[in-house]
């Protein structure tokens, strides 16, 4: 417990002497990954605005450093579970944007044959056990995956991403308790973007967030979720800790969603100010922050950054096209896949 306490106070996350630094190529790769997510989400927003996309979607824009920083610390065979705001996690874990768009558009080529849509997007081969439309439910499934990994001695780790709203669900405490008792290889990643839908999290969350997992004997670290380097180094350390059998860890990431709770949430002033939005998107943007640092380090310049962005943009553009062109599932699929 003393160790946890200390850990929860660490906020830098940058490597200590024991840790091997990440090389510049990898940071550039992470920049690309973050940009792909942003680009993907901007397309989603457009698809919605143009009434091409059915239903709703919850955009991850602003939070990209978390999914990327964490997933880059995972192996392909490791597991993640995700949330209603799940496109970023899915891409970061390695899914292809074309099949993702197909899913979001309800097409047969989608990861779930169009049956899941945005809120249930998954990448079954890539270790993404799925987004979930029940707040908190992914934490249960991820804990089960970690349990399974431990039983099978597979050396896999599970990561559960969730918003701070999931702290309201009792399930989370039940599974954190068991994860701690049984030293399961799991990392709980809490994305605190300050709002549960339209309600500020301070109105819904008593005490200190980091004290909650700590009370269950779980190692906690709190980081700036906009700084992909901090997120990544800290995640590496915690994932290593979990994989080594020391038990679960909890990574609290402070972040912000730039857009509405979902694509249709346009008038937001009754719950948050335009100034606050502007502050985060200009001063605290994870892409800008990494680009600036890379430039300072001499590892990138405008042309390198532009090149990455151009390529990623083209890829996403092609993926949207693929999704739009893809056919709908055959009506007879409607009662297939209910049972194995």
């Amino acid at each position, binding site marked *: 417990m003393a160790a946890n306490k200390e850990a929860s106070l660490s906020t830098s996350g940058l490597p200590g002497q024991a840790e091997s630094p990440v090389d510049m190529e990898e940071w550039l790769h992470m920049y690309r990954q973050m940009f792909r997510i942003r680009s993907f989400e901007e397309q989603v927003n457009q698809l919605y605005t143009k009434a091409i996309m059915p239903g709703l979607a919850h955009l991850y824009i602003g939070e990209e450093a978390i999914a990327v920083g964490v997933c880059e610390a995972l192996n392909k065979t490791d597991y993640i579970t995700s949330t209603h705001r799940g496109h970023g996690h899915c891409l970061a874990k390695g899914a292809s944007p074309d099949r993702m768009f197909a899913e979001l558009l309800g097409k047969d080529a989608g990861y779930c044959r169009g049956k899941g849509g945005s*809120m249930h997007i998954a990448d079954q081969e890539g270790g993404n056990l799925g987004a979930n439309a*029940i707040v908190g439910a992914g934490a249960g499934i991820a804990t089960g995956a970690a349990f399974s990994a431990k039983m099978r001695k597979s050396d896999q780790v599970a990561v559960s991403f969730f918003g701070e709203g999931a702290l309201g669900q009792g399930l989370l405490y039940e599974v954190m308790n068991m994860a701690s008792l049984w030293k399961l290889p799991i990392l709980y990643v809490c994305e605190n973007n300050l709002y549960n839908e339209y309600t500020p999290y301070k109105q819904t969350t008593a005490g200190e967030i980091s004290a909650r997992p700590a009370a269950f004997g779980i190692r906690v670290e709190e980081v700036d979720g906009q700084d992909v380097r901090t997120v990544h180094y800290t995640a590496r350390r915690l994932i290593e800790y979990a994989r080594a059998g020391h038990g679960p860890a909890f990574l609290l990431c402070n972040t912000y969603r730039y857009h509405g709770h979902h694509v249709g949430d346009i008038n937001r002033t009754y719950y948050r100010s335009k100034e606050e939005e502007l502050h985060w998107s200009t001063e605290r943007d994870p892409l800008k922050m990494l680009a600036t640092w890379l430039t300072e380090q001499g590892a990138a310049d405008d042309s390198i950054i532009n090149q990455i962005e151009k390529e990623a943009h083209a890829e996403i553009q092609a993926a949207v096209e693929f999704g739009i062109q893809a056919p709908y599932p055959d009506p007879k699929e409607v009662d297939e896949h209910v049972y194995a």
Partner: protein
Amino acid sequence: MSTHKTSAPATARVSRANGEPVHNKAEREITMAQAVREALAEEMRRDPRVFIMGEDVAEAGTPFKVLLGLVDEFGTDRVIDTPISEPGFCAIGVGAAMTGMRPVIDIMFGDFLTLTMDQIANQAAKIRYMSGGKFKVPIVFRTTLGATRRSAAQHSQSLHAWPSHVPGLKVALPSTPYDAKGLLKTAIRDDNPVVYFEDKMNFQTKGLVPEGEILIPFGVADIKRSGTDITLVATSSMVYVALGAADKLKEIGISAEVIDPRTLFPLDKQTLIDSARKTSRAIIIDEGYERYGVTGELASVIADGAFYYLDAPVKRMGAMDVPIPFSPALEDLTVPTAETVFQAAKTLCGRS
């Protein structure tokens, strides 16, 4: 998406054949959402013990905007935003109801009933009986049902069969703005736990609703359209599907009677049975999963009560027994439509 179930008339002008007290108040055309809001506002003005609790109910007025404005009148002490803790705030509601309050608990999506069945079915429903009648639990759980919103399997279910199964609960599911207002006011004044379902697709449906007091007694079905050849029993938004089918049937000379039970418990068995005895044919249309649900219950009530009068087996049309798919190409296939009901009715009347 052309088969969207809310090809329901924008204005629902359906008869109110029985049950309601006569009133001579001014009627206006308002939406279902407005009717719900009006019922809540009136009851909160009337009775200081009534309060609303749930996620994003205050300033946001729920994601469906149904409660918009209530917090301005009643303040955040009576329109209370909660954490995302459905079991927790339902439990708080139960404890508050036992000790003198009359909570209206907002469960955003009916799918989240899965999280709250202990509070609803093991606590609220049983406390009166377990205490030998000493406690009462006057609480309303307001929630939603209904598919075709492209919200996929965990945000589209119609789980009203579950609470209907449980003694101690009452279950109401209005189809029109008029019924929404009248049933909700009755629910709030009932001394028992009531689970009250609104179809998310109907919030913008309009209908005539009187200003001020209307109370619709529970257990009184409403004949939304009279007919002689076949009985269509339909719940919630399936009433519009049934009315649409009735229009089509009329064109081929079949006169359909459309009955809305309005409350599943108490259930107005007699009205259902009488109609089926008269028409000798019946179809039950409900948006819950077909198996082990509402259609089975209503069909067997009719098959039993009208046994000697039926010319054909009672037909059941529920939602297809599959988790609700996201893809529009699939989702619309899972819910009864005016067309599928029309075809079924035609066949049942021997006109294939």
